[in-house]
């Protein structure tokens, strides 16, 4: 059986700018698959291609075994889409939004009523059905969006930055709901994110940067590619400290956001050595297993916050 979502050599060009370059991956049935990358990395372009809104310049993308260009109606039939910007009508009630949303997929009558109740229960919005959408909190609105996208019982659920604009409690809530839904309906979930903690909850993650797919695997396997621990040091003069670490121990050290970052095996054993080697220079030391953020820095030399939110790593990439 074909993969619920797969792309082969996907490329998208806007004028002279390459937004996606030779992107190939496959998502297994029932997986929660994350597309991780900074803003401008190509996630949104990929999302729009998978949701049949944008044709690729080259390569193929298939959803539910159907080509997104030549069989777009069939793709739309097996796809639920939750956009980053709200697609609910704020002037309509939750129930009206769900009902009209169901109508778009040909649902009506008793079948629509049954699904509407079922999804409102599953997403815990059943008690708000008669409320206008504009009176709901951001977290509740996102849940109604998901309920709407699930009415046709899609094989694949596509979510664009689902946590954006949600407070921490609503985020945790959203994830527990996604995991429940996957278990209950057995559907495949593909989401885009620039948040590391969100990506680390996915079964598998694809890292997108400047339109290229840099890596794809489970969060654990991606972290394991670093093959070392990550040591982060705060010092009085970070640039000087990085140079001295390199000179004295031969470690490649980089400076990000005023902190020195070193990838070394068994980092905890080195902490005392380092502090003693530079008396009075080091303010704090953190040693830990690499995170997806570290994987991203390791591969790109940039922070995940990307060009909008963070600084580019200055130097010393291994």
């Amino acid at each position, binding site marked *: 059986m074909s993969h619920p979502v797969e792309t082969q050599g996907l490329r998208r060009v806007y004028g002279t700018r390459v937004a996606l370059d030779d992107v190939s991956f496959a998502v297994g049935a029932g997986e929660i698959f994350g597309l991780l990358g900074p803003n401008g990395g190509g996630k949104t372009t990929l999302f729009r291609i998978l949701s049949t809104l944008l044709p690729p310049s080259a390569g193929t993308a298939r959803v539910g075994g159907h080509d997104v260009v030549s069989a777009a*109606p069939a793709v739309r039939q097996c796809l639920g889409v939750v956009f980053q910007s709200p697609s609910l009508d704020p002037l309509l009630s939750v129930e009206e939004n769900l009902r009209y949303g169901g109508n*778009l*997929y040909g649902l009506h009558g008793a079948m629509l009523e049954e699904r509407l109740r079922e999804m409102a229960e599953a997403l815990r919005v059943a008690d708000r059905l008669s409320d206008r959408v504009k009176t709901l909190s951001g977290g509740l609105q996102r849940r109604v969006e998901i309920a709407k996208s699930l009415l046709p019982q899609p094989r694949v659920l596509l979510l664009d930055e689902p946590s954006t604009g949600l407070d921490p409690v609503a985020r945790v809530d959203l994830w527990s709901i996604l995991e429940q839904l996957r278990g209950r309906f057995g559907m495949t979930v593909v989401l885009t994110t620039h948040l590391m903690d969100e990506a680390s909850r996915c079964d598998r993650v694809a890292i997108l940067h400047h339109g290229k797919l840099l890596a794809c695997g489970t969060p654990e396997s991606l972290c394991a590619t670093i093959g070392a621990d990550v040591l982060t040091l705060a010092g009085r003069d970070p640039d000087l400290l990085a140079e001295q670490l390199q000179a004295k121990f031969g470690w490649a050290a980089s400076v990000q956001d005023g902190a020195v970052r070193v990838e070394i095996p068994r980092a905890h054993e080195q902490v005392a050595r380092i502090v003693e080697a530079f008396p009075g220079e080091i303010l704090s030391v953190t040693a830990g297993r690499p995170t997806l953020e570290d994987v991203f820095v390791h591969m790109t030399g940039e922070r995940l916050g990307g060009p909008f939110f963070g600084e580019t790593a200055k130097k010393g990439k291994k």
Partner: protein
Amino acid sequence: MSTGTHLWLPALALWKRDVVRFVRQKNRIIGALATPLVFWLLIGSGVGPGFRLPGMPEDMTYLAYFFPGTVVLILLFTAIFSTISVIEDRREGFLQSVLVAPVAPEAIVLGKFLGGMTLAAGQGFLFCLAAPLAGLPLDAVVLARLVPALLVVGFGLVGLGFLIAWPLESTQGFHAIMNVFLMPLWLLSGALFPAAADSWMRFAVVVNPVAYGTAAVRRAFYGDGAAFGSLPSYGTALAVSFGFAVLMFLLSVWLVRRRRDVS
């Protein structure tokens, strides 16, 4: 219609949504109805009862002459307000979820057209109830001619608005087009003054689809007997307006099929 897509159910959902939204936005009702009403009263009564234009029947006040033109202005305003939302709705809004659903392009266009037409014709009709105030008849014969005219002209004007709105990226662009294209279409439709037989405006009226809409509404009130210079008959005006409405629908379907995405 493409295979695997739905037509009537989505079209009806889009139509219902437009009507429900409209009823819940009181300011839109005021915008589409009050502005032309003020226009009619100020211009119509401002020029005075003795005001005459060539091509206007002898015994007609300007207030009465301008009334059908105001009805068309209401249709045009409502059509503009109901299609301008398409621009933002496609980027972030309800229409996004319509575009990724298995919905035929015909359904998207039909739903939007029917919604806009209902609002336009409904408001136009409400205003027509004031016709006796302008000394115009409002009997069963007039109503039987008026209602089809309001529906057909409303459908066509919504179509014109949709065709302009769909490819646009911003509502500012729509406002510019409204001022330099849509309003002149109405001004040159014979709504404010009849086109003199030998003027360049005569040509503008012949090729202007809105002129046939104005003529249809005018003939609905006065019948084909009244002398209005070279104004087309009710049948001709309605037939041309119908043809225009069908053309707008077909062009819009073609456009949606071609450009589903905003980028």
